[in-house]
């Protein structure tokens, strides 16, 4: 999982929200159906997919899905 597109697919599969690439830059609170608990689900999935630890405080501080992706791939 390296691209933002792959990541958006992961988000869709893991938490079942019908999101498209256009939602990557929306503030998390603005995503339909978003709950902060989803961050924790995503963290687990990201670590499984990337095979390396992802910083939870940084994920919690991210303001969009693109921001979370940036934390995960270390960009």
């Amino acid at each position, binding site marked *: 999982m390296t691209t933002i597109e792959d990541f958006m697919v992961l988000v869709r599969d*893991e*938490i*079942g929200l*019908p999101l498209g690439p256009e939602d990557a830059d929306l503030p998390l609170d603005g995503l339909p159906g978003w*709950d902060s*608990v989803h*961050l924790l*689900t995503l963290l687990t999935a990201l670590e499984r997919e990337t095979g390396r630890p992802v910083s939870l*405080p940084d994920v*919690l501080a991210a303001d969009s899905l693109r921001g979370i992706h940036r934390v995960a791939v270390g960009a």
Partner: protein
Amino acid sequence: MTATPAASPPPAAPSARAVAELHAAGRLATDYPRVRGLLADLPGAELARAGQVLARLDPDEVLRAHPSAPVVGIAVTGHRTLGTLVPPLTAELARHGLLARTHLSGFDGWVFDLGDPGSELYAARPDVVLCVLDPDVVFDEVPLPWTAADVERALDAKVALVRDLAAAFDRRGSGTLVLNTLPLPRRFTAQLVDYRSRARLGAAWRTANARLLALGEEFPSVVTLDLDPLIAEGIPAEDARLGRYAGVGLSPALLARYAREVGHLARHLTGRTRKALVCDLDGTLWGGILGDDGAEGVELGESPRGEAFAAFQRVVRQLGSQGVLLAVASKNDPEPVAAALRDHPGMVLRPDDFVRVTANWRPKPENLAELAQALNIGVDSFVFVDDSAFECGMVRHALPDVAVVRLAEEPALHIERLLSDGWFDTRELNADDRARSARYREELDRQGFLASFDSVADYLSGLGVRVRLAPVTAAEVARASQLTLRTNQFNMTGRRLQPPEVRAAADGPGSRVLAIRSADRFGDNGMVGVVLTRAEAGVVHIDNFVLSCRVFSRGIETACLSAVLADAKAAGAHAVEAVFRPGPKNAGARDFYPEHGFTRVGEAPGGGAVYRHDLARVPASPAHIEFTESQEESR
């Protein structure tokens, strides 16, 4: 038996995708009855994904499409963040066909939630309250630096607080409060460097947990789930990062496992506890194939695999001793099966342990349906266990209400697989449960007896039925509650009562709970039914009437109803009113009141119809029944 259809495609690995697709197509609510089947065999990670989708589904949307879908209101409160519990909880209930309506409290709101009668939690009128406690609920109160004695004091105070809240909950008399034992992580014990203090901390911690467990005995409305056996399966109790950064007290994996246990409890509370375990033989109760290998050739005892099968039989027998009806459904010739069950030296289970042994070459769903009829219970009371994917698939397809447990080829895994879903979990057992198998065997004997009579009337008069109606005693409250929970067919309103609710009805001014006991020439049936009555302004209301399916159609229901009517008349009432509320299985009881001189007078609040009897002519008790009635509680 292992058999595989010739040209079936390999089955797809079960995944959450089907649920996600229903959701994407906007059909999740309308197709909700399919969800249970889609979730049945999902492994943990897939179930978690499905739970994410299901947790966002509005239960009211499902109810609009399926008004009779069973809903369980669950309030979640606790010490730390519990949002991660909601998706697995929703999925676990959905696995049992239950619709969860969850109310999630704010962070650390449990004391206020449970202690304040006006709290939002109580306002949500939940059926079940989950108060999820984690080790920090104690360690948050411990000073720095700390000793084992400090923890002991904090534990004492916390357990006392939990007890007060449990008592307050219990006094409300409705719903079930679920507590849990506290895991003890090494991150605390290892901070004490001397073994003596560490042992003292460990002992104090276990004492506190034992006191939490005892609350379930002290308060009938409380259940304490023991987390130790779940952690012993290898599930981490905590996640250090989620705990530190996200306020999550117990690990998501442990919360998911906890949710599974809550699913079993919810199934019980809604009257869906399974009653019978139907076992395959070849590959299930013994290894090998009886028809090919002969009785001497099957694996049972004496070899490592044979011992694994014997160990599994011991577990089946243990379940049978607690009121689970055991039966066999095997594709085999009947004679060798009967001989093996009777004579094989390694058998733990013997013919007497089973209410019925069916060995033939007919499709297993047919045998299961016939067994259900003979026992007069629904196939949804069955758990079917088999090692064959073919047989499991066939039963699941033909009888989707049967719980199917597919065993692996490795017999050492059979026990865990059978027990994994707590199919028979119940609040408490009583003498009736322990005698249940014998009673059902007697019932099958009665059916043989019936076949020898020309008419039902001859049969009934030969049966020597004795019925006793008397106010429920304190010792009978649990059984009375259980009858309302387990009985589905002759249950006039479907209302389930927990023990405190039974007690309240028995003690209430003007209201009575009457226990029905019966016996006949084949044996004592024990307590088989309950009538709840309430006198108000010259009218006696029958709030519910429940009779075990084991004994109806023998006139017992008529005898009891005529006694209630006669009593009402004698007490000066001018009418008796009763409600029939249709449920999924009580259609057979729909005409019970009209057939006994009641007339329909209107709709009942909450659904169903109100019937009224003017007491001008009270129906007679059937002549074949020896009926006694007592106004006293003494027996």
